[in-house]
């Protein structure tokens, strides 16, 4: 089991009626990696996670989890998961739920440490129905961790958290990776992928469009950002090499694949360019470039 990858997905295809949610996805995650599945809503992240957990049957492809079928891996206590539509039972106390799940695994995470790691101090005696959104999310994390499983699958784990909760959660996730857990998490927060993951897998339209470290993706996108102040009447459509443009108040921001030719064109029309700035693109720009263009850009490590 130590030699098998934590996760091995080959040719995964999932359809809902006529819609192809996941389209021939291949992904191998070696044990110990922290991987972000990054993509916009509807990219196929959740579908992939659900297929890996055996919650839905793929139309094609194979999935091995820790060298086993998803169901066998879960039954053996190899997987902990935080689902987007997972829930907690009514008429129960947090401590009872945590206890039940801990006891279902062959090895349980020591309770004191689990409580501290998931950040659910003081919640054990509380009725589940009295939890806030962020607290629920942390209790669900505690359930995912309860059996100290080698593989953790977290589907948008921070969606109900405020900024502070989110940062605390990232620290927790980095700590898990430090303990040797394999962590695969879906997110549409670039900041989260950048802060936590060793590897970022960008998914769009059910396909893998990029795969590499955050730094590689930024470089792979190879875009730069030009911003300046311009009136609303300024025509920016005809500029060469521009991949995307946005306007916030009077500030225009362009991402370009070729900063030199874009700048030349801007300067050539003679209009002033107050507050001109040229910067390296952020991960966000790289991902936007990747997910908006249909081509697969390989930045594989």
């Amino acid at each position: 089991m130590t030699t098998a990858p934590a996760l091995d997905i080959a040719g995964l295809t999932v359809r809902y009626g006529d819609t192809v949610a996941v389209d021939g996805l291949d992904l191998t995650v070696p044990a110990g990696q922290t991987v972000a599945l990054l993509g916009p809503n509807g990219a196929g992240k959740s579908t992939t996670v659900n297929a890996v957990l055996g919650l839905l049957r793929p139309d094609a492809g194979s999935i091995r989890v820790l060298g086993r079928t998803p169901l066998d891996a879960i039954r053996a206590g190899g997987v902990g998961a935080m689902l987007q539509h997972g829930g907690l039972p009514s008429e129960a106390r947090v401590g009872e739920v945590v206890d039940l799940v801990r006891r279902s695994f062959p090895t349980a995470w020591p309770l004191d440490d689990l409580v501290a790691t998931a950040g659910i101090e003081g919640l054990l005696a509380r009725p589940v129905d009295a939890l806030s959104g962020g607290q629920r999310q942390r209790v669900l994390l505690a359930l995912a961790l309860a059996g100290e499983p080698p593989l953790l699958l977290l589907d948008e784990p921070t969606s109900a958290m405020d900024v502070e909760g989110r940062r605390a959660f990232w620290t927790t996730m980095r700590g898990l990776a430090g303990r040797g857990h394999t962590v695969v998490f879906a997110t549409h927060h670039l900041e989260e992928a950048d802060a936590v993951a060793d590897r970022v897998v960008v998914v769009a339209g059910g396909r893998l469009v990029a795969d590499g470290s955050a730094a590689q993706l930024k470089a792979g996108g190879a875009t730069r950002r030009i911003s300046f102040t311009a009136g609303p009447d300024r025509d920016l459509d005809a500029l060469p090499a521009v991949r995307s443009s946005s306007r916030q108040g009077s500030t225009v921001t362009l991402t370009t694949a070729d900063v030199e030719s874009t700048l030349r064109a801007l300067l050539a029309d003679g209009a002033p360019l107050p507050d001109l700035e040229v910067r390296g693109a952020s991960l966000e720009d790289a991902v936007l470039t990747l997910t908006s263009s249909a081509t697969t850009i390989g930045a594989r490590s």
Partner: protein
Amino acid sequence: MNPLFSFQLRRVARNRQYLIFTVVLPALFTIFFTKIFGGMASGPVEYQRQAALYMVSMMAYGGLGAALGATIRISFDRASGWLRQLRVTPVPQTQVLAVDVAVGALLTLPSLVVVALVGRFVNDVQLGLGQWLALVGVLWAGAITFVALGILLGLALDERAAGGAMGFVGVVLATLGGLWAPVEVFPDSLRTLAHAMPSYWYAQLGRDVAAGAVPSGTAVVVLAGFTAVFALLAVGVARHRPLHAVAG
């Protein structure tokens, strides 16, 4: 004890409404009906017959209500995502279902026993010890029909419909099955309908035992048939809509 079993038992037992509707209410009705109809009895023999009849009817009402109430709640656990969450723990799916059946079956016992105690000590129903045990035993065993029905409804109905069904289905089964008013006073058409109700045959098990007889074969066969149909339908629904699905 299986951890999931004790967990589920604690959850249902925490629900006060459940205890009131399945234990307290049938017990109070037993006293109420016996005071009214027993008071009109022509003599002690007739009183015994009436008191035993209402006790058995209310045991049946409490038993089927408890079985339904304990199992229809599957719908709530589907809606909340809890069953989905359980699905990604090592707890086997078969165990989740088996625990629901076991909890439903066990929780019919308090209402049966409490109503029997009320019958004996408040209403002075006289039966032999063996008869008392047999009475509770057959009604406990027969409750499996309503456990199956409850699981079917819990799988088939959404959260809101399930909440309504918990009270409604029990009352309809009790009324049409002749548990409130005995079928002897029903007009012919309603009596035919009563004979098509599993609740009628469920109570018949108890009436036979209270009358000193063995439960009728017809009642046993009809209840077994209903149980099989409910269970098959539940399997069919579960195929289309797995336990762990959130909705749809």
